[in-house]
């Protein structure tokens, strides 16, 4: 009897010690996460809250905001009021910029995927000792400032640039082809800038791909195309999704590339927002546009996440 009691007590105190240790561990984890949480709170959530508040204020005549509630900013995102007869219509200029942003971002995603997929596959099938070298080469563009790289592209594709000069010199064309300040230029720039963001997650997924499954596919009468479609793509889908998000999201808010390569006429959302805070002197509209951009991104992410979880069984070795 006394034995049992002693045992019972020992177990209880043991459990208590375990509970205490667990609690301490949880506390330590929160402590470790604190710096990140502080940064996220002050650098991301804080400004976001300010943006949300500003979007519901009156615009100041010389920029800034007047602290009075107004929905004009949000009104201006989708609608416009004619300054002469006060008729209300869709803000088609904004809508076309929205559309252009989404379209160019989707196209950038598709282009980087089309180029990045074979690249990642190539790297993943190289001998293990050479793979880091290839990955290193992929990341080289990150060494140079984005602005400088963008101006370099400008130098290549402008009317007096490298491509046009060569084409004219060898007599292929007489007049330079207008490439700069077109959607093509923006696409080229964005695809170039965001390609590594597509290649790296794709590579990570393909490196984990069991290539014996590819052999099994060939063995079971699947040709190259069928192996790609039915085995490789389903198995590296997480990488495709991650890469697409990493390219699509920043493309949507791109500022430098469309500004430099698109000129003034081919604006994207980032430029439109900048315009409202700058020359437009309409901070509430700019804030409302920013929040709209955020919502679009979140909708896109939700769509992806749902799609990804529908992907079903994933390989775990």
């Amino acid at each position, binding site marked *: 009897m006394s034995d049992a009691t002693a045992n019972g007590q020992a177990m209880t105190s043991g459990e208590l010690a375990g509970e205490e240790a667990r609690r301490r561990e949880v506390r330590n984890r929160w402590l470790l996460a604190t710096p990140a949480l502080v940064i996220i709170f002050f650098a991301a959530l804080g400004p976001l809250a300010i943006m949300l508040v500003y979007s519901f204020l009156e615009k100041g005549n010389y920029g800034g905001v007047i602290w009075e509630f107004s929905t004009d900013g949000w009104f201006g995102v989708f609608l416009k009021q004619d300054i002469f007869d006060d008729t209300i219509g869709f803000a088609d200029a904004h809508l076309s910029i929205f559309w252009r942003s989404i379209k160019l971002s989707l196209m950038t995603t598709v282009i980087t995927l089309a180029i990045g997929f074979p690249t990642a596959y190539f790297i993943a099938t190289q001998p293990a000792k050479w793979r880091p070298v290839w990955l290193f080469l992929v990341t080289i563009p990150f060494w140079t400032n984005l602005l400088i790289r963008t101006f370099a592209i400008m130098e290549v594709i402008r009317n007096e640039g490298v491509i046009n000069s060569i084409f004219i010199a060898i007599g292929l064309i007489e007049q330079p082809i207008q490439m700069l300040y077109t959607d093509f230029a923006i696409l080229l720039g964005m695809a170039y800038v965001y390609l590594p963001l597509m290649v790296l997650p794709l590579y990570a997924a393909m490196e984990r791909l069991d290539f*014996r*499954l590819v052999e*099994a596919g*060939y*063995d*079971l009468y*699947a040709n190259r195309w069928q192996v790609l479609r039915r085995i490789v793509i*389903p198995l590296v889908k997480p990488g495709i999704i991650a890469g697409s998000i990493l390219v699509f999201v920043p493309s949507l808010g791109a500022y430098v590339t469309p500004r430099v390569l698109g000129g003034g006429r081919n604006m994207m959302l980032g430029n439109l927002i900048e315009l409202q805070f700058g020359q437009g002197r309409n901070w509430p509209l700019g804030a409302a546009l920013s929040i709209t951009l955020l919502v679009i991104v979140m909708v896109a992410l939700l769509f992806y996440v749902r799609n990804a979880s529908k992907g079903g069984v994933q390989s775990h070795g």
Partner: protein
Amino acid sequence: MAASPDSAPAVTAHQVTKIFGGGSDRVVALDDVSVEIRQNEFFTLLGPSGCGKTTLLRLVAGFDHPTRGRIDLDGEDISYLPPYKRPVNTVFQSYALFPHMTVAENIGFGLKMLGKPAAEIETEVSKMLKLVKMEAMRDRATSAISGGQQQRVALARALAPRPKVLLLDEPLSALDLKLRKEMQIELKRLQNETGITFVFVTHDQEEALTMSDRIAVMSSGKILQVGSPREIYDHPSHRFVADFIGETNFIEAELTSVAKGAGKLKLASGKTIEASLPDSGVAIGPVTAVVRPEHANLVTGKAAAALDGKLSNIVYFGTDTHYHVALDSGGEFIVRMQNARDDTGRWRIGDRVGVSIDKGSVQVLRD
């Protein structure tokens, strides 16, 4: 379905050489290998890792192509055909089941790629599931079934398209002993029921002996001997073959005369015994011969003994006992004798003993 020697070969390798890499990384995986695999036989490639057995299998499957030489399937050159154009399927060592498909989808994959109609795939898959006794697992994910079940699915997947030849790359090596024994019997049954030629790769000599119609023993990229399990075990041609398969005593002796495939061996003890000779024949003079431990007996008295020595160790195995004899002429000879219940303590370490060798159980090696 036993292989009949006169049926046309299913797979033939003609002087196949396979070299990987170049320069200092150059590896000769297969060195001028020729072999014929007959229709409907259970053919085993046996050898230690790195002997080239898997390379030969991959050449037949089409994952690699020969550097030199030719591989025929049913008399047609398939050396450079891609794997998806060969009526040959593989059961992989790792099974390589598609993790994003169910059991049934895995099994139906080959038929689907061959463009068979859905209804036909459906019936075939059901048939295959029944054949490997996996009907209940039809819609499971491949990650939700055990290793033995994965093995069965891999088999069904490879058999479903009715290949002319089924290649099996050490498919049982990942299973535990009990399951492995079960699957050995299962594989033989499947081969009998389907009548498909099986080419089986293994490094497990016991597996090879129990399952095969014929075995090719490989070492360092070469095939040393091809024959039935009995031929390989009783009449090994090379020291490597004798050593790799079963336990063996090697005795150095002198071949004194040859007549009709049999020869007279003069042993170091001075006694003369009869021995079988390899097919290719050997020259009169010093040779190495092998005797299996179970083909020898311990005796007392010099008259019956071919070899003499001192008992140096006794190892009890339950069904039988191994007696290690230190021969007077040097070297060790192991005798394996069946245990009876009343022979405890008949032999003691340190006893002077003679070793008698059963008639017709000495085999002279080619090397």
